[in-house]
C-alpha cells in the first residue's frame, strides 16, 4: 500500500518552523481570513447568553471535580459501559491503543475502516498503524479528507485544512479522489458547495459498505456510560450508525460525572468552537442499542501522557480542555504562523502547553520550544470556556524547560542570553556595544527595523523584527549634554516638542 500518512515527527523547533510559515503570504492570508471570521461569530453568540460567565465557571468546576476524583470516575464509567454492553479497553500509550484497534479490525477481517474526526486518534497516529497492518483508514470529515488526500498535516483542531483555500482544495480533489475511490467530476469548480458535494459522493460508497468505524468522543458520562460526539456534517452519524462495529478512542480526561453536566458543556462547546448556538448534529449512545446501529461497541480509555499532565499541579488545568479551539482563533501568534509551526496535532496556545506536558519537558528541542511560542498577551485565557489560565501554565513550563537544561550543554539561544548578561553586567562593555550598535547601520533595514542578524543573534531575529536603535545611546547623550542640561537637540528621542518645553 502507498504510504499516505504524513507525520509531525522530526519537525524543527517553533522559531524555525515559524520563520518558514511567516514567509508564506498565501498561508497567512488564508488563516487571517478564517480566524477573524470565526472570532466575530464566537463573540456574538457567547455575548447572547447573560450567564455565559457562570457557565464557564461551572464548566471549570465540573472538570476540576473530574480530575480530582479521576480514578473513581474511571472505575464508574467502566462499570456503566460494561453494563450497557460495551467492551472497555485500557491503553497506557498510543502504541497500546493502536494495537487494540488493529486487533479488533483484524478479527473482523476488514481491509478498511471509516473514521470520525478525532484528536485522540491523530495524537496516537492511528492511521499510520492501521496502514502498516494493511488496513486503510478513511477520514470522513471534509477537512480531514482534504488533509488526507493532500498527504498533508492538520493545522487546526476544528478546521484542520484552514491553511488551504478553495482552489487548492479543488486541485487536491481532482488529482487524488480517483486514486482511492470515486473520482471528482472533471468540471468540478472551486465553489465550496460543489466541493462539499464532491466529498459527499466520494464518501457515500465508503459509508455504505464500511463494517468497522473508529471515532473519538467529546464527552463520556460516568454515571450512564453515554458517549457524546458533536459534529456538523453528518459524517459522524454515518460512522456511528451504519457499521457493525464501533471503536471509540477516548482520552481519560473526557469523562464527565453525570448526564446533567452536559447542560453546561453543550452550551459552552458549540458557541466557543464554531460560533453557533448549536452544532448541526450531536449523537449520544450508551453501549449497544438492539436493532439500531453497531452491535459491537468498544471503548478504548487512553492515557498517553495524560496522567503526567495530571501530576503537574499548575499544568493539570489543561486537562479541562474541551477542544473548542477558541484560544487558537484569537491567538496573534497562531494567526501569523498557522498550525504546522507547532509541530503537533495540538497547535496554538493550548498546544503550546498540552504538547510539552504530554510528551514531557526536556524530551526534545522542538517540544521545549513550544512554551516560548507566545507573547503572553492573555487573549486565550479570556475566551477559554473552561477558564484554563494558559499564560500561567506557559510561564510555569518555561521555568521547567530552563530548569531541565541547567547543567547541560547550552543551546544557541542560551549562549546569546549568556552574552547579554556579560554585556549588561558591566557598564563599559555595554557602552562599547551600544556605540557599535548605533553605528552599525548595515543591519538596519529601510523601515528603521533590524532584520536578520548573524548567528547567534539570528536565533532571536529570525522570527522577530526589532526597532532600530537610536543613532546615539542614552548613556552617550547623558554624558554629552550633562544630563540634558546642555541639550542641543541631537538625541532623536529628545526632538519632540511637548510638555517638557518650558
Amino acid at each position, binding site marked *: 500500500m502507498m504510504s499516505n500518512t504524513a507525520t509531525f515527527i522530526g519537525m524543527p523547533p517553533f522559531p524555525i518552523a515559524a520563520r518558514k510559515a511567516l514567509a508564506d503570504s498565501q498561508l497567512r492570508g488564508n488563516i487571517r481570513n478564517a480566524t477573524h471570521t470565526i472570532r466575530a461569530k464566537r463573540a456574538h453568540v457567547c455575548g447572547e447568553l447573560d450567564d455565559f460567565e*457562570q457557565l464557564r465557571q461551572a464548566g471549570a468546576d465540573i472538570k476540576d471535580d473530574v480530575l480530582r476524583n479521576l480514578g473513581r470516575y474511571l472505575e464508574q464509567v467502566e462499570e456503566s459501559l460494561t453494563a450497557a454492553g460495551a467492551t472497555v479497553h485500557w491503553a497506557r500509550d498510543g502504541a497500546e491503543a493502536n494495537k487494540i484497534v488493529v486487533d479488533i479490525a483484524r478479527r473482523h477481517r476488514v481491509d478498511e475502516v471509516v473514521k470520525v474526526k478525532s484528536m485522540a486518534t491523530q495524537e496516537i497516529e492511528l492511521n499510520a498503524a492501521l496502514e502498516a497492518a494493511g488496513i486503510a483508514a478513511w477520514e470522513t470529515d471534509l477537512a480531514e479528507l482534504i488533509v488526507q488526500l493532500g498527504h498533508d498535516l492538520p493545522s487546526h483542531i476544528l478546521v484542520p485544512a484552514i491553511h488551504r483555500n478553495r482552489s487548492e482544495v479543488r486541485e487536491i480533489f481532482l488529482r487524488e479522489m480517483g486514486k482511492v475511490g470515486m473520482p471528482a467530476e472533471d468540471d468540478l469548480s472551486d465553489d465550496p458547495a460543489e466541493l462539499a458535494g464532491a466529498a459527499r459522493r466520494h464518501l457515500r460508497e465508503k459509508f455504505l459498505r464500511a463494517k468497522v468505524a473508529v471515532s473519538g468522543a467529546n464527552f463520556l458520562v460516568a454515571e450512564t456510560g453515554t458517549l457524546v460526539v458533536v459534529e*456538523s456534517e453528518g459524517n459522524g452519524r454515518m460512522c456511528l450508525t451504519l457499521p457493525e462495529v464501533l471503536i471509540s478512542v477516548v482520552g481519560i480526561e473526557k469523562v464527565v460525572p453525570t448526564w446533567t453536566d452536559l447542560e453546561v458543556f453543550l452550551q459552552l462547546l458549540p458557541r466557543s468552537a464554531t460560533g453557533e448556538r448549536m452544532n448541526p448534529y450531536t449523537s449520544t449512545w450508551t453501549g449497544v442499542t438492539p436493532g439500531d446501529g453497531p452491535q459491537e461497541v468498544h471503548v478504548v480509555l487512553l492515557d498517553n501522557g495524560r496522567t503526567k499532565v495530571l501530576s503537574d499541579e499548575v499544568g493539570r488545568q489543561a486537562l479541562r480542555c474541551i477542544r473548542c479551539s477558541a484560544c487558537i482563533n484569537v491567538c496573534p501568534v497562531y494567526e501569523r504562523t498557522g498550525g504546522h509551526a507547532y509541530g503537533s496535532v495540538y497547535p496554538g496556545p493550548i498546544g503550546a502547553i498540552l504538547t510539552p506536558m504530554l510528551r514531557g519537558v526536556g524530551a526534545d528541542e522542538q517540544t521545549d520550544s513550544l512554551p516560548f511560542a507566545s507573547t503572553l498577551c492573555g487573549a486565550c485565557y479570556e475566551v477559554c470556556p473552561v477558564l484554563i489560565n494558559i499564560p500561567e501554565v506557559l510561564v510555569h513550563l518555561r521555568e521547567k524547560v530552563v530548569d531541565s537544561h541547567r547543567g547541560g550543554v547550552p543551546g544557541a539561544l542560551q549562549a546569546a542570553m549568556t552574552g547579554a548578561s556579560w554585556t549588561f553586567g558591566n557598564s563599559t562593555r555595554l557602552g562599547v556595544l551600544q556605540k557599535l550598535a548605533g553605528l552599525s547601520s548595515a543591519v538596519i533595514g529601510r523601515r528603521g527595523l533590524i532584520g536578520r542578524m548573524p548567528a547567534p543573534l539570528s536565533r532571536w531575529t529570525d522570527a522577530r523584527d526589532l526597532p532600530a536603535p537610536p543613532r546615539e545611546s542614552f548613556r552617550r547623550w547623558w554624558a554629552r549634554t550633562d544630563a540634558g542640561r546642555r541639550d542641543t537637540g541631537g538625541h532623536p528621542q529628545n526632538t519632540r516638542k511637548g510638555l517638557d518645553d518650558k
Partner: protein
Amino acid sequence: MKAREEILSRVRSALVAAPRATDPGGDGIRRDYAHVRDLTDQLTLFVERVQNYRATVIRTDPDGVTAAIAKGLAGARRVVVPPGFNRSWVPEHLDVVQDEPALRADELDTVDAVLTSAAIGIAVTGTIVLDHTQGQGRRALTLVPDLHVCVVTADQIVGDVPEAITALSSAVHSRRPLTWISGPSATVDIELQRVEGVHGPRTLHIVLVE
C-alpha cells in the same frame, strides 16, 4: 501490571499532593447559571432560530398536519415512515416504504425522504431531538435519505439546553441513543464559508403543530 491497574495507579500517584475532594460532584461546583430561560414567545423564537440555520418551519393547526407534511415532502416519491408514526397524518398519494424488516443501508440510499416525529424541540438553539422511540425510527432512517420532514408539537418545545437535558434524562438512563439536529448538515471546512448539506439530509422541514 495490566494497563488498567497501571493507569489507575498513575492517576492515584499524580493526585497525591492534590487537595482531596471529599464529595465527588458535590458542593465545590458552582451552578449559578440559568436553569430555565425566561422567554416571552418560545414558539416564535423556536421558528426563528430553526430558520436561522436554514431549515424551514411549516406552522399548522392539528387539522392541517397532513397538508403541511405533503407540502414538506413535495417532489419526493418514495418515503420511509418508521413504525409508530401517526398513520392518520400520512398523505394518501405517498409511496410509503416500511422499515420492517430493517432496510439495508444501500436500500435506504434509494429512498427520497423520511418522515418522523421527534422527542422535543429547543427554542433558543433551534434544535429538534430524536430519542428514536415510536414514530422516529432507528438512527439510520433520518440520516441516509436526502430530505427529512419532522413533525413536532408545540407542547414538545422547551426553552434552552438545561431544560432539554432534563427532559431527555429518562431516555438516556434507559440507554436510548439520541440525535440532536440543528438545521440540515453543514460544513465550514473550506475557507470557513458555511455550506448546507454534506452527508446528512440536505433539506430539513419541520412541521410545527400548534
